[in-house]
């Protein structure tokens, strides 16, 4: 009896140590570009660290039982041990304590870190429409092919949609928020590190809510650049809008063009409805 528990304890301790070593040293999560992505990654690793002993315990019990208590055929019964109130209460207490711990940190702590402060250095408007994104910067410049943001800046994305549900997701920022027709949703991101989509495919705006035909292609590249470079870029974008962006910018800028845009959308909807 005691020897059995010693063996189980030893296997559990070994598996736990191995598991903890793996989850704390092997960087499973690629590094993000925002403060929020660090919150996410830390929460992720913390959850793994807490899960390892639980998982190791179950694997040990399962594996040990299968190996040690094998008995071919139904010729013999095990002991008539149907319940052990103390074990049940200890189990409930331990799982409840673990639940509470997870709820406090990373739960509430992570929620505070990600959603806590509702202030921003700059606001960027994002409109999703099947199947592209339109990004409007504070100076009114608009782009539909690439999103550029400055580093070390807290940015509020005001996100909405003109047709169906979309979800505004930059994997490298660690967050997403749905683009909901008729509503503006907000997502706060504090950029911390420069980067370019050319080096990391996670720096892209990706629609993450199924939106029909070209949902998978509803993406645009993202660059995080130094503040000076951003200022020059966004000023240049305003003064020399690229051909593709020009149309979209014109559409939102003037009423007449806006109506035309609505008609197009209506025609598209009518055709599909």
């Amino acid at each position, binding site marked *: 009896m005691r020897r059995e528990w010693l063996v189980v304890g030893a296997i559990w301790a070994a598996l736990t140590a191995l598991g903890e070593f793996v989850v704390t040293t092997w960087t*499973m*999560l*690629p590094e993000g570009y925002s403060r929020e992505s660090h919150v*996410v990654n830390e929460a992720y690793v913390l*959850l793994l660290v807490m*899960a390892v002993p639980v*998982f190791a315990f*179950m694997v040990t*019990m*399962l594996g040990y*039982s*299968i190996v040690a*208590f*094998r*008995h071919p055929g*139904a010729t013999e*019964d*095990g002991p*008539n*041990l*149907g*319940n052990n109130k103390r074990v*049940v209460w200890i*189990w*409930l207490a331990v*799982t409840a304590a673990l*639940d509470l711990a*997870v*709820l406090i940190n990373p*739960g509430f702590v*992570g*929620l505070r*870190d990600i959603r806590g402060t509702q202030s921003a250095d700059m606001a960027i408007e994002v409109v999703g429409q099947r199947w592209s994104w339109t990004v409007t910067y504070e100076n009114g410049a608009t782009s539909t092919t690439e999103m550029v943001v400055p580093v070390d800046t807290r940015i509020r994305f005001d996100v909405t949609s003109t047709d*169906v549900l979309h*979800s505004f*997701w930059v*994997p*490298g920022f660690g*967050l*997403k*928020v*749905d683009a*909901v*027709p*008729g*509503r503006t*949703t907000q997502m706060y991101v504090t950029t911390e590190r420069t980067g370019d989509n050319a080096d990391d*495919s996670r720096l*892209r705006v*990706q629609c*993450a*809510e*199924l939106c*029909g*035909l070209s*949902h*998978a*292609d509803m993406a645009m590249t993202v660059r995080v650049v130094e503040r000076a470079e951003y200022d020059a870029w966004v000023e240049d974008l305003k003064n020399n809008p690229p051909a593709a962006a020009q149309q979209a910018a014109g559409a939102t800028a003037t009423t007449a063009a806006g109506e035309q845009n609505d008609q197009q959308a209506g025609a598209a909807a009518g055709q*599909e*409805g």
Partner: protein
Amino acid sequence: MRPLFRAIKWGIGGYLLGAVAAWVMAGASGPLNGPIEVTVGFIAGLIGWIFGIGGWNNWGREWFGLPPKDDGKDDWRRYFRFNTDHKVVGVQYLVAFIAVMGIGGIMAMLMRLELARAGTDFMSEETYNKVMSMHGILMVAVAVAGILGSFGNYLIPLMIGAQDMAFPRLNALSFWLIPPVAVALLSAPLLGSFEAGWTAYPPLSVLAPGDGQLLFNMGVIAFGLSSILGGLNILTTVTTMRAPGMTWGRLPIFVWAGFSASLISVLFTQYFAATLVMIQLDRIAGTAFFDAKAGGGTLLYEHLFWFYSHPAVYIMVLPAFGVSLEIITHFSRKPLFAYKAVVGAFLTIVGLSGIVWAHHMFTSGMANYFHAPFMALTEAISIPTGVVFLAAIGTMWKGRIWFTAPMIMATGWVFNFMIGGITGIFHADVATDLQLHDTYFVVAHFHFTIIGGSIMGLLGGTFYWFPKITGRMYNERLGKIFALWVTIGLNVVFLPMFWVGVNGMNRRVAVYPADLQRVNEFISAAAFLLGAGFLLFIGNLLWSAVKGPKASDNPWNASTLEWSVSSPPPHHNFPLLPEVVGHPYEYGRPGARHAVLSTTGATHG
């Protein structure tokens, strides 16, 4: 077979009648397969089908004072009839849903074929969306009704010592509602299919061009009706049909699991039906429940949808909890550990399931103050679920573990469902969910919970009760190979999906960043192997059902009541009421008995 052909005739006739009537009333101008025509046609066709298959003979004739017609001979043809024997209904469910699982599996193989390459090499994005949506709804149906419909119907009356379900005709009706659902979903491609996923979020499901969405809505509503009727029947049966001495505290754990899942079916299914009616009306009648421009809102749909669809995941897994604990108990030859705590856990899960739905909506833009309470409630579910795991390992500890195919499935269920449960916390936690929501991390998570938690229960139960149902033994060696194949294969296929998820691959896409292609190639290759393994399952069952060695009444020497009757059981199960005198799992106590099958006991009224 005549009733089946009559049902097909009346079904088609009803459809045409309904469609033409709607067409005439709508001005006799548009196409005959317009949205309103399809909707009315489906309803009329469904009524025609039900009348034809047995509605008239079982209810109608009685209402009009005509002599009833009996079910016909007890040969193989009874499986193609409106048959009120709960064992026939159970087999009908089992075979039908294994077939549906096969179709859904082929869809999965097609998806993996496309995803082996980063671009669109095999099918277009449009086709992919449709195949993905079809795979989703078919597999959800299998998980929802697979165990409850088959083993629930077949075994609950046997386990509680009853001769049939409380409402045998309703039972047959709940099964015969399923074929029109399958026809509606599988014929949707004729009308342009549906492409909004099984979740059918509007406005996409309202605006998407394919009118197949209409058939999706109607089919799923009919399926929900079947689910409610089935649940109602199980609740009533367990409440009123228990044999003398079968107290609530002596119910086998699978009965409790089926009872709990049925509670959820009856309490929540109608919310999904209501939302689909709204989508149907938005599409055909010009209402604007989900049109923001006209004052509608899409968050309404998400709330109502998940108010059913989160509890639904417990309709999927609770019966599998029951099957797996049942198997673990009998093959460990020990009493189920902490029986009362497990029953309490099941009922706690039923209660909690109804108040956690918004954890699917952390990124939806709903009010911020929703996040903390829904995170707390969701994480609390880990406590009752933990009790189920305690019961599994507590029962195995010091048992006499007979490692058969069903036992491998059940222990594999513990392992795989645990991975599903642990990764679930990453979605309950708001911080990590904001990144992981709608990525392949979710895909991996719910395949571990649904295949690991529900389908492995279905597969394990199929092996376990196969000798009881068919009277023949399956091939144990092939069964063991298959059980290991699924248990391990699931990990090989779905563990890498966690990795592609955290590396920025979102779900429901045919194309993805090229740097994730290598891992996806691996996943696809592994998925084909896992899929091919199911041929072993089907082959084993088909061959064994016909040619397998005859099974004894109780090949596992198990203690519950279904093993005390012949294999397969006689038409009315127990000629005389069994008298239950003890707990169902009194292993290791000499002389202790669960029930006495006396020859002089009271007969059924």
